[in-house]
């Protein structure tokens, strides 16, 4: 896949060496999935035996499972044997040499989204030599993290450098058997991120900044593990507002978060994967399993997501509130336009006493989009005094789209309290008229009102992304009005 952090660091030390790109392995494993493919993937990555065995067990289990069919999404069956499970990084010969060679429409989108200039080249896939500057910036960050003792590296590097940590936590939050896509991911995952924050450490920067500058290209089967040890704090942001294309249609990532006593993990996602053309053809299928385990007392895990891309989104970032007084939060904005379909939500499982969860979900449907919120709030009998507050609001733009709300509320604890509210409506005519009477065009009025609708969620994003997220909403709604 993409170059390792290690390789870039070496580069920086050795100064730029022309043609280094050709040093990266070019070999690709042909499409198809069987045990030998898995062994090859594991071997290529130089993985320790425990991981190879783990993958194989997952594969064995996956073969006995059936794809889930209950989500409110419709898609053509996926042929798992036609996917290539190990792909080399793109050759630099094909990449644009500078921004001048990049599709001007793409650059226009970056502009509308407000993406910083030094980012645009990297996002457009311009060859490494053009982004040399951002590589040196990355080194400073890496030093800062090292000072604090924070481990932040690609998953494949973590497997080699910190195998004990990986073995301890991998699969402990999302077991291999959890669901079809998690099993598949466990067998063939390509790469992802590994974060470990030691006891008492407050990660010195948002791992968003660092990540954006040096992110490996997200693979189709990404695996991420974030562990916050006692008393630590980390804020992690994945994805970006720029539209991301990928010839791989199926994305089945797994993200596991572990928060020990008094630790807090803030995990934010901005996702704008290619949604397909106006007829919904060719977009990405995003089937993700994300779960956080609030293991320790007073621990806290907070999920914030802005989903505007993908042809199909199926994800339920969840929290298992195990530790006493632990807190789980889910803030989400999901937008479906044209023919996009989303079935997304969260699961808050309250096990410990005095646990609290907050769910704020804002769904926006436009065009022929279908947007469903599916959430589970479960109070186990041990969750004394648990509290949940849920607010799901849906906004319909146009009369050809659909907005659906499917909450599951299951309580077995008499002292617990659950409050759930949901509303579905279109943008009020009166609000539109008020804005237009003040001089705003119809399109601007919709954007302002939609942004207001999403504000509670945007407030939870790292600041630099809040602005981009707002722009992303505007760009994604283009053509939905009038």
């Amino acid at each position, binding site marked *: 896949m993409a170059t390792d952090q290690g390789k870039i660091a070496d580069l920086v030390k050795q100064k730029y060496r022309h043609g280094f790109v050709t040093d990266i392995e070019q070999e690709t494993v042909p499409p198809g999935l069987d045990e030998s493919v898995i062994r090859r993937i594991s071997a290529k990555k130089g993985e320790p035996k425990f991981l190879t065995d783990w993958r194989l067990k997952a594969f064995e289990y996956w073969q006995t499972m059936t794809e889930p069919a209950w989500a409110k999404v419709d898609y053509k069956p996926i042929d798992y044997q036609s996917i290539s499970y190990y792909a080399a990084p793109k050759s630099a010969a094909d990449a644009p040499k500078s921004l001048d060679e990049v599709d001007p429409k793409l650059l226009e989108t970056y502009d509308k989204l407000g993406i910083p200039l030094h980012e645009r080249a990297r996002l457009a896939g311009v060859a490494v030599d053009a982004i040399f500057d951002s590589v040196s910036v990355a080194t400073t960050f890496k030093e800062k993290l090292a000072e604090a003792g924070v481990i932040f590296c690609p998953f494949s590097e973590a497997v080699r450098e910190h195998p004990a940590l990986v073995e301890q936590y991998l699969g402990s939050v999302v077991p291999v058997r959890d669901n079809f896509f998690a099993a598949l991911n466990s067998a063939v995952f390509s790469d992802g991120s590994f974060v470990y924050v030691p006891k008492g450490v407050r990660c010195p920067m948002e791992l968003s900044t660092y990540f954006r500058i040096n992110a490996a290209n997200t693979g189709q089967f990404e695996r991420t593990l974030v562990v916050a040890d006692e008393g630590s704090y980390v804020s992690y942001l994945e994805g970006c507002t720029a539209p991301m294309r990928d010839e791989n249609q199926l994305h089945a990532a797994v993200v596991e978060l572990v928060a020990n006593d008094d630790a807090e993990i803030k995990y934010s996602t901005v996702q704008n994967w290619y949604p397909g053309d106006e007829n919904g053809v060719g977009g990405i299928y995003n089937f993700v399993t994300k779960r956080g385990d609030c293991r320790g007392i007073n621990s806290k895990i907070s999920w914030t997501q802005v989903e505007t891309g993908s042809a199909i989104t199926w994800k339920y970032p969840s929290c298992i509130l195990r530790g006493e007084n632990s807190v789980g939060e889910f803030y989400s904005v999901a937008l479906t336009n044209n023919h996009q379909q989303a079935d997304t939500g969260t699961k808050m499982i309250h096990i410990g006493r005095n646990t609290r969860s907050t769910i704020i979900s804002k769904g926006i449907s436009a065009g022929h989009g279908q947007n469903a919120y599916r959430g589970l709030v479960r109070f186990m009998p041990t969750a004394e005094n648990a509290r949940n507050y849920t607010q799901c609001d849906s906004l319909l733009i146009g009369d050809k789209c659909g907005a659906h709300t499917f909450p599951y509320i299951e309580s077995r604890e008499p002292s617990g309290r659950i409050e759930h509210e949901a509303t579905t409506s279109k943008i*009020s*005519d*009166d*609000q539109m*008229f*008020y*804005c*237009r*009477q*003040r*001089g*705003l*065009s*119809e399109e*601007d*009025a919709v954007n*302002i*009102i939609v*942004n*207001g*609708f*999403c*504000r*509670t969620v945007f407030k939870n994003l790292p600041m630099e992304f809040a602005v981009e997220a707002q722009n992303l909403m505007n760009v994604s709604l283009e053509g939905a009005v009038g």
Partner: protein
Amino acid sequence: MKLLEIKDLHASVDGTEILKGLNLSIGPGEVHAIMGPNGSGKSTLAQVLAGHASYEVTSGAIRFRGDNLLEMTPEARACTGIFLAFQYPIEIPGVNNTYLLKAALNAQRQARGEPEVDAFEFMRLIKDKMKIMQISEEFLHRSVNEGFSGGEKKRNEILQMLTLEPMLAVLDETDSGLDVDALKIVAAGVNSLRDAQRSMILVTHYERLLELVVPDFVHVLAGGRIIKSGNHELARELDARGYDWIQQEATAV
């Protein structure tokens, strides 16, 4: 040239005709009061001028600054200088009050080919206006009209008016629900904008606003038409005697 010319306006809502041939002419720098009993069509007139989609104009013409107003979208009418202070200003959750006003100002500036203002310039611009309307800074951080009292909503409308500096301000029952103090503040704001070019239409049921913002002309709207016009004295007479005598006079004619 007259700023606003309304000729034989017929307008309906939900199939019921409310305005039945209304004529009105407003020159630059004039303040006109439109009074009348409830249901006479006063608010309808205000909404029709602003271009609310629920109201259907079945016949008649409205020219503003020489242009055919009926062909223009609500935002085009706003950018050409019409401002409506709503009788019931609506809430828009999550949308910052200042943000909306700045966006509106810039949209109108852009339409006029003027340069837009940034956040700092904008704050400078509205500082004095905020003083006039006795609006504190924390007010600006709130969402549009969310959690505002009746008086605060009306003061917010006038703040917007002062910022957008329209050529024709239409105030739809701005005085309803206001206590004496709030009324004084609103009147001060409105008066601060009076000049030789700018005109205003004050739609009101009661006379008390007109004591503070003295109109040049007073019209009585009843049965969907203007049945009597006069000056401030007419307003005082209405206050003393009610509307019945005018309607009797009109039918006798």
